[in-house]
């Protein structure tokens, strides 16, 4: 695509070319790693009887945010799956918000979205098989009658594709529209600079609103399908 820009890293004689979105993703991973490491160390030291302050408070609120997304669907099994969902939700929110600082969103690259969706899908299928057994899982595909098996299989396979495409389309459309407006501003200079009064609203809608809503939907759907498989007997 036209807007893919590449970052070239030179270490001695080596030359590595990676796309900017993937590079941003790797940077987010490194930053998140350090953040969680230090936050975990700090949380271990804090006194649980006192009111939380600073970093610990931020972490608690993040935890509540994740609970808000997944708890309604996972019910009793929430604590078992929260490390996975928490990591992915925080990573994706940060990835969606990087458009605000002028970098390319990792989520506007289809491989990032497909990785997340496939991870989620494999987790759902794996846990479903672990919980109910392979036989029951295969039997579920033949319901309500054996003739519908191909349709059921397509329905299962549609989940990662639809998750990927929904997120990809939203974020890519947002970044393309923002890019077009910026190009127009540059082409129409100096009068075009009045257009800069419009761009904060574009960023508000496409980066903040759309990004956060899409993250919410992605993981609501993911946890809904997981909850259907895992916390079935509690209903």
């Amino acid at each position: 695509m036209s807007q893919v820009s590449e970052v070239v890293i030179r270490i001695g004689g080596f030359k590595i070319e990676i796309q900017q979105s993937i590079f941003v993703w790797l940077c987010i991973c490194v930053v998140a790693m350090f953040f969680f490491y230090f936050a975990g160390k700090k949380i271990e030291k804090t006194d649980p009887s006192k009111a939380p302050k600073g970093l610990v408070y931020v972490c608690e609120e993040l935890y509540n945010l994740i609970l808000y997304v997944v708890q309604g669907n996972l019910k009793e099994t929430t604590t078992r799956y929260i490390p996975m969902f928490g990591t992915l939700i925080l990573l994706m929110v940060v990835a969606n918000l990087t458009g605000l600082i002028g970098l390319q969103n990792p989520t506007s690259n289809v491989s990032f979205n497909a990785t997340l969706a496939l991870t989620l899908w494999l987790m759902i299928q794996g846990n479903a098989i672990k919980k109910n057994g392979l036989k029951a899982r295969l039997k579920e595909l033949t319901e309500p009658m054996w003739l519908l098996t191909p349709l059921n299989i397509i329905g299962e396979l549609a989940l990662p594709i639809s998750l990927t495409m929904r997120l990809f389309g939203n974020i890519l459309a947002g970044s393309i529209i923002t890019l077009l407006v910026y190009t127009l501003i540059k082409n129409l200079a100096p009068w075009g600079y009045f257009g800069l009064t419009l761009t904060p609203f574009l960023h508000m809608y496409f980066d903040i609103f759309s990004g956060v809503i899409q993250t919410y939907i992605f993981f609501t759907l993911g946890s809904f399908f997981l909850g259907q498989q895992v916390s079935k007997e509690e209903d």
Partner: protein
Amino acid sequence: MEFNQFFVQGMALLGAGIAMVAGLGQGIGQGFAAGKGAESVGRNPEASGKIQSIMVLGIALAETTGIYSLVIAILLIFIKG
């Protein structure tokens, strides 16, 4: 030969435009959801927060089909156009 190339390009751009007709259904669906949301807030103003969050979720889900067509249009434009 050259004619064929331009023909493919033009047809791809035309196809991108036609693909976006899917926005019609999406618009109707989202408008319907928003209208029902406004109606239910009018009927039960205390539950407006809950209604709003459900409405936003439903609207964003209804957006999916439109997004598919958008992805197809973008692919046509950037790969063939």
